[in-house]
């Protein structure tokens, strides 16, 4: 609290990732990264890891062949030995050739071996939606991971959360899938000046509000905040609940918010059908039975492959769609229908 030292700095999401990895590599010699094109001069396909291999060495930042199953399998093996691997799956859509190592091994070895082994790795991966590259490079598949007992699933939004949660994930005693959004890498925000971690499993109310709860995470948070601004201009006071982690899911915060507002709109870039929002909606519906002022609404990605080019906005959620859903929720029952 010395007036000389600033308490925060403003950095971009990519820098937050870089700093979390840099600090983790510096703090613990067991930490290492492995994946495709991670080392300098590439520094990761989006450049977010620039400098790390130069600073910490190519034996801490390992470039691999295009062998996703081997990347994850090697990380499982190293984690079993007590190393702290941070493997990268460059784009989340590629997980379908390698999810076995996460779902059948990382997630299960502690349980299956009665605690004699465990594999607390942190898989970093990113959604690349928003770049128009078409159906196989734009998916948001976090629901697949949520459904596998044994994994933690973290999907933060702001630079501060990205940095604090990535750091926490790396040193977490359980395997974590950490999902970034490439189109958000440039978004800037304040982070605490020194090293810190953000607890996994705790949602954050990014904007308090009284009339409706927008429950979201990852890229959706930015849309939700924009929607809330718009709505504020119309006299609707929306609360934005940023889940930040999907497993563990902070239901207390979600239910607390919805209990207060009586209205819930759930937004995410995963496909809506059988997506993360389904679980959240189901829980709200059950736990707040009779206490809701309107049905829970979901604003997810439409049940379509993602088209290339300019049609993405017709598929993905957006601030406008979220705002419209909140309006409908607020108006519910006020109209002509019984």
């Amino acid at each position, binding site marked *: 609290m010395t007036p000389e030292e600033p308490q925060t700095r403003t950095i971009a999401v990519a820098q937050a990732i870089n700093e979390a990895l840099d600090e983790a590599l510096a703090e613990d010699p067991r930490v290492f990264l492995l994946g495709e*094109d991670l080392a300098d001069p590439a520094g990761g396909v989006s450049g977010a890891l620039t400098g790390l291999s130069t600073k910490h060495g190519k034996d801490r930042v390992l470039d691999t062949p295009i062998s996703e199953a081997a990347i994850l399998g090697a990380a499982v093996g190293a984690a079993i030995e007590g190393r702290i691997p941070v493997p990268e799956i460059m784009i989340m859509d590629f997980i379908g050739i390698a999810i076995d190592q996460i779902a059948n091994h990382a997630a299960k070895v502690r349980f299956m071996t009665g605690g004699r082994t465990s594999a607390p790795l942190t898989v970093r991966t990113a959604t690349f939606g928003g770049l128009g590259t078409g159906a196989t490079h734009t998916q948001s598949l976090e629901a697949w991971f949520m459904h596998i007992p044994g994994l933690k699933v973290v999907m933060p939004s702001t630079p501060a959360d990205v940095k604090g949660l990535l750091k926490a994930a790396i040193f977490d005693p359980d395997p974590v899938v950490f999902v970034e959004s490439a189109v958000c890498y440039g978004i800037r925000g304040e982070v605490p000046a020194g090293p810190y971690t953000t607890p996994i499993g705790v949602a954050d109310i990014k904007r308090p509000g009284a009339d409706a709860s927008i429950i979201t995470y990852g890229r959706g948070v930015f849309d939700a905040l924009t929607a809330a601004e718009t709505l504020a201009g119309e006299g609707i006071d929306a609360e934005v609940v940023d889940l930040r982690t999907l497993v563990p899911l902070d239901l207390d915060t979600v239910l607390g918010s919805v209990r207060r507002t009586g209205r819930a709109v759930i937004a995410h870039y995963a496909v809506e059908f059988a997506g993360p929002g389904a679980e959240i909606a189901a829980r709200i519906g059950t736990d707040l039975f009779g206490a809701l002022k309107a049905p829970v609404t979901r604003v997810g990605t439409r049940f*379509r492959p993602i088209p*290339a080019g300019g049609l993405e906005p017709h598929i993905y959620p957006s601030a406008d769609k979220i705002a419209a859903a909140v309006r409908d929720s607020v108006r519910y029952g006020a109209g002509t229908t019984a």
Partner: protein
Amino acid sequence: MAVTAPPTVGSDVARTLYTKMALAYAVDERLRKGIGTGEFQTVIWPSRGQEAVAAGIGAALRRDDRLVTTYRGLHDIVAKGVPLVEVIGEVIGRTAGACGGKGGSMHIAAPDYGVMLDTGIVGAGVPVAVGLALAARQEGSDRVTVCTFGDGATNTGSFHEGVNLAAVWRLPVVFVCQNNRYAEMTPIADTMNIDGVWKRALAFDIPGVRVDGNDPEAVYAAVSEAAERGRGGGGPTLVEAVTYRFKGHFAGDPMKYMPKDERAEAEANDPMPAYRARISDLLGTAETDAIDQRAATAVESAVKEAAATDLPDPTVLDRDFYADMKGIPA
């Protein structure tokens, strides 16, 4: 087993090879230019430098032969004979595109010309090609399937599983590895120990051949031989075509990771001027110039034609999804 195929083809084939190279070259140049100026809002993974491989494949195949390629496959698709307006239209996201603009630069299919799959999942095309070849056998057709991919793709499990299956089933597939020495920003030496991708054929007991990928006649000869073997029931072949990727991984790649001297050496072996010189000897400068000119003109008019068509409208989201949409979430 590693041989350099003898470069002896007739002048018809030579003309075809150079024409395909010139077209592939012109398409790639034009698209990169348009991306650079902002004329096109899209992305491509340039094939500049690999034209000879595509031409060799394209000239060796019949129209009904099949091709499976990758995001870096526009040259392959052009050389297989797909109309330029379809290729360019798809890349720039117009309804004139091969897939009406829904697929994008790395998801082009044109079955009328044998282009059955273009995938952005590295390695995934390999087993799919096996299925295409299996279908040909089931139908009693003697068509062959060429499956082409990069050096990096041979490190994927899909490559191993797919080639093994083709070997066991003795299917007519020609696996053509376009070894351009990089996978994205990572040089090949960092991702495999072998000094030739062709050696991976030894794991399956199939023929493996290494050719100069900057020599379209060498590629043509190797692919033709492999294709004839496949048609005759002799099973698959792995052809490694050694080449180089002049423009990096994606259009706009600053290429910091590619050593200057390596690039200079590769540029000295640029297949375009090299084959142009050979062709000029054979056909004369005037005809060679005309080929270049026709290619540039064809590309320019394809750009115009494609750009004049509409962007796909949102109704395409409900078309060509499920064959039967009943009960499908809106």
